[in-house]
Every structure is written in C-alpha cells, then in structure tokens.
C-alpha cells in the first residue's frame, strides 16, 4: 500500500479522520522550514501538504501569498524543495503531497518534474490551476512514475463534473468548503456532509475537506463528515508570528498542531 492510502487506512482503523497539515516549503528559510515540517508531523499530522512556492499564487489568500514570498526570498527553488523532502524522509514515513501551480510543473517538462518529485520522496501532487480537462500529460506522467494525484472539488462544481474529477484523482479528493482563496474563516461552511456524500458516490478514494479551518472545534465538526481534515493558514500564521524567533517556531508549531489534531481524535 502506498503511503497516502496507508495513512488514511490507519486513521480509519483508529475510527477517526486523518489530520492533514499544510505548510509552505522553505518558509521562511530552508532550515526553519525543515524543522517546522518535522514539528507538525511530531504534533500529530497524518499527512503533510507541502506548498511549493510560486510567484503568482492566484488561488491563495494573503497568509499563503506572504508565505510563498518569504520562501522565495529565502532562496527556495525547485531543487531545494526536492532537498527538503529528502531531508524529511530521513526521519519520517508520513505521506507528503505537493500543492502547487502548473507553471512550476510544466516549465521544465512535466515528466521531469514528476520523476524528480517522486525520486525526492513525495507521494502526491495537487496542481491548483490545472483542471482535469488539461491534465492529460500530467496524469500520464504520474501513472508512469506512480505519483498520486489530488483534485479539488468546489462548492460550485456541478454533479456532472464529479465523474471527471474523481477519475483523475488517484490519491484523494479535496473538497474546498468555501468559494474563495485559502485563508482562515470564522465559521465552517454548511452542507459539508452532503457535499462529501455527493463526492463519495463517484469515488472510493478518501475525501478530505479544507479551506478556512482554524480551530479544534471546526476540525472536530468537519472530521465527523470527512476522511481527512486540512488545516493550512492557521499553521502558516504560526510561522508568520515566529519570524523574529525562528528557533522557537518548532515548539509552538508542534503545540498548535497537537491542539488542532486533537479535533480528529475522539
């Protein structure tokens, strides 16, 4: 079983949802980012979503935009992102999914990107601005190199698109519970259970829910309906708050992750 499937199976065996943590690779610098990733995994993340920073993150809100900017200013590159994953693999077997924009994947050849991601130790790839209609080349490369794919379902997605999206996904399906960009929201969107059920009618893959979740109570609420719960901006905010004290970041981040991840544990 691949790492992604194994992580969801383990959570299911424990009768709970998986906790998915998002951080931007290289935010705010390589070494701090490596320590931050290790901290969220130590804090109870079942799966790490690693944002590969892009200069023009048009689906991201201010929190993740600033994180990407810090990472790029801190010298993050495609090669360094691979290096970050290799370093994480020295100490962790948790699944790692890249979360990025298509130009970074496409720019030097889709197959090269996929091969390098897999070789570094990544397990999956979510490309925010690549709908399945344009994903033929990427899907072929991912099949060839056994890198799992993740596709997003939005509240605006009609039922008629679900077969296409679910067929393109091989790792899990990601339901974004809000229209809009990434970022913290006060309230959990209504109708998440109905949306998850709608998706499950088209796939056996795990369905995770994210976008805007920031409290243990919100995590608990969503965990009742989904196979996994994603928290991103709330953790990135912890990074942003520790810029002046980078050595203190891992401790704070591990505690924040543990508090949020408690939401998936009964």
């Amino acid at each position: 079983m691949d790492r992604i499937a194994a992580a969801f199976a383990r959570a299911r065996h424990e009768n709970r949802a998986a906790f998915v943590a998002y951080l931007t690779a290289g935010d705010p610098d390589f070494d701090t980012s490596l320590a931050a990733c290790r901290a969220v995994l130590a804090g109870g993340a079942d799966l790490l979503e690693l944002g590969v920073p892009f200069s023009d993150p048009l689906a991201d809100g201010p929190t993740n935009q600033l994180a990407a900017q810090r990472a790029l200013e801190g010298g993050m590159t495609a090669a360094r992102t691979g290096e970050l994953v290799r370093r994480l693999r020295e100490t962790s077997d948790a699944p790692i999914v890249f979360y990025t924009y298509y130009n970074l994947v496409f720019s030097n050849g889709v197959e090269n990107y996929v091969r390098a991601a897999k070789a570094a130790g990544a397990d999956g790839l979510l490309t925010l601005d690549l709908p399945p209609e344009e994903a033929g080349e990427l899907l072929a490369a991912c099949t060839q190199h056994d890198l799992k794919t993740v596709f997003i379902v939005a509240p605006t997605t009609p039922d008629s698109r679900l077969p296409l999206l679910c067929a393109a996904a091989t790792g899990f399906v990601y339901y974004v519970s809000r229209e809009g960009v990434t970022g913290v929201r006060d309230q959990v969107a209504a109708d998440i259970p109905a949306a998850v059920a709608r998706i499950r009618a088209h796939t056996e893959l795990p369905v995770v829910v994210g976008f805007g979740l920031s409290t243990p109570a919100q995590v608990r609420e969503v965990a009742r309906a989904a196979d996994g719960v994603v928290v991103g901006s709330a953790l990135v905010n912890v990074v942003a708050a520790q810029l002046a004290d980078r050595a203190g970041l891992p401790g704070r981040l591990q505690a924040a992750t543990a508090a949020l991840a408690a939401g998936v544990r009964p």
Partner: protein
Amino acid sequence: MTVPAESLAAPRFALPDAAGHFGPYGGVYVPETLMTALHELTAAYEKARSDPAFQTELTHHLQEFAGRPTALCFAARLTQHCGGAKIYLKREDLLHTGAHKINNALGQALLARRMGKRRIIAETGAGQHGVATAAVCAKFGFDCTVYMGAVDMERQALNVFRMRLMGAKVVSVEAGQRTLKDAVNEAMRDWVTNVRDTHYILGSALGAHPYPMMVRDFHRVIGRELKEQILAREGRLPDEIVACVGGGSNAIGCFFDFLDEPSVQLTGVEAGGRGIRRGEHAARFEGGKLGVLQGSKTYILQNPDGQIELTHSVSAGLDYAAIGPEHAHYRDQGRIGYAYATDDEVLETFQLCSRLEGIIPALESTHALVYAVKRARELRPEQILVVNLSGRGDKDVQQVAAILKGEEGPSNR
C-alpha cells in the same frame, strides 16, 4: 454582419477549438471554483454572438456611447518626415474614455447584464481598461471594483481619479511587483470568492477560454472598419498593419480580418523597456518561454524554475509577463511578425507624433509608431502602412513631463 460562407471555412474562424486552444496555446488553467463560471460564460457568449438582437444592441452602444466608427487618418507630416510609405493612423484614441478598451468593456457589460450579474470586477494596468469598465458600469448601473497595482496607480493617477469619479471602487494591489500581473491575480481572487453574482471583465486577449476569443471578437470591429476605410480611400489593402502588443487585444482585433489577406503584412510591437535583459523589458518573444499563467498557456517571461520574471516598460499597459495565446499561435504560423520598441525610442516618438501630427499618442500605442517610423523608410512611397493608434496619451503627459524634466528615469520605480 454577414460573413460569406467560404470565409467561415477559413482556418482563422475555426480557432480557438471548443476548449479554447489556438494550436498548442490557450486553454483553461484555473482553480476548480471557476470552471463552472467559465463554462457558463462560454455558453452565454456563444448564444449572444449568434443573436442578432445582441449584435444590434452592441452596435448601437458602440456608435452612440463609444463614438464608432473611428476615423482612418492620413498622417501627412509623419509620412513626409519618414520619406517612405504612406502612414495612416486608425484613430481608436478618439473613442470615449480614450482607447480601444471600450469596445470590449461594452460587449462584456451587455453580456453580464444578460447573465443577470449585478457586480463587475476588472483589472487595469495603464488604467484605460479600468476607466472603460467604470464608464460602462456607470452607464448600465453595475457595482464596479477595479484592481490596480500600486505602482500603476502612482504613474496613472489621472485614470484613478476618473474611475472614482464614475463610481468605481479602485483597489490598490500591493502584492508582487505591484503592476498589471498582480492586479490580474487579485481580480481572479475576487472572482473565485464572489463568482456567483460577479462578472470579471478581463481587459485583454488573455486568460482562460473564452476570454481570448471573446475579447478578440469585441475588438474585431477595428479591423472591419479599417478594411472598409482603406478600400474607400486608397482602393486597395494596406501593405502592412502595425499595433502594439501587451496582452494583445487591440492588435488581434485590428489584425483578425486581415489574417487571410496574404498581401497584408501584420506586425505586433512589444515593450522593449530598457533593453532585452532579464527584468528590464516585457517582450515575451525575446527571451520568454512556453508556460502557463493566469489561465492560459502561452509565451511567458520566467526564470529557469518557472517563477514569473519581473517586467518593465515605461507604458503600464504593456508591462506584463505573458502574451495573448492567439498571438503565440500566429507567430508560430509565421502569419504575424513581432518587433519591440525601447522606452527611449518611445519617448522620442511620443514627442515626434505630437509635434508633427497634433496627436498625443498613448505610450502603449507609441510602441507601434516607433516601428512604423523605422519601417516606413524601408518602403516605397506608393506603399501603405497603417498604425492602430489604440489610445490617446492624455493619461501619460504628467509621467512624460517628469521624465523629460529629468525628475525620474523612464524606469519610474
């Protein structure tokens, strides 16, 4: 307009394909949240475009509100100055709000009204598209928000004031390099968030399908008028037509009806900025490579990793890292040629045109004039060169005055 059956069969009418591809370029590269909105927009546009009532309504507003048709004007003294081909100017600068942008803003506003949207958003670089959008929103009663890079707001302060006068909310974009590309990102973020009641009037032949096709179609009126006017005036087609290319909407609108006239050479002029060095220009065909940005696959200025490069041009409207996908396609086909003009050349020709013709051209359009002045000298006096003068330079006079006084370099940042 009735299009003869045989020309409908010409290849240009087959592009883009149903999924928005111009050969290998174009397509739809957006977050899932926008997919349905784009499908709805495509369907609504296809319906409107074949509806004579829509075309009649659009033509009415283009005439009554925007001031079409625009003149084709013989530039006698510029022609004499160059001592070569006859230079004609297609006067899109005479349109209401000062540039060709109003053609597309009117078309999309009428479409948004048909779709039942109540709110309009737009991005703007030089501010011309923002002003056109603000004007049509005032006219038709839409709530209007325009995103504009902070750097552009400073260099185009007059247009910011015009938009606000007409009731638009102008939002300063502080992200990235704070110019057009960043304004597009912010407009797309707004659209992702408010997609159900909002229409995004994208201002160039860029972005995801159906925008490059739709924006082109709304500007085709430029080329159609030009063809009629030059035939009436000279009894023949021009030898060459020149237009500036940022995203490329005025150029493709002007060129489209000449694509299958092989005797007419078509040339787009990009922004050469301070010269073709990384981060110093916005000439995508000089050092750009194939990529995907803001919805479309096309030529993009980017670093070896795929991060989008900084760009520079004295003209905010051309200061953009990607070129419209249809341009990339016709460049591959060898049907449209591309050149570039530098900031210094533009500043010189800006003054030359003002002095010789009594026409102050927009800095964007001046890029086309720079090429035309050089090119006319290579052509014979009986040959005809047409420049699409896409906008007027009133918005640029303060910036140019400051540069000429030496208060700032053409860099402006």
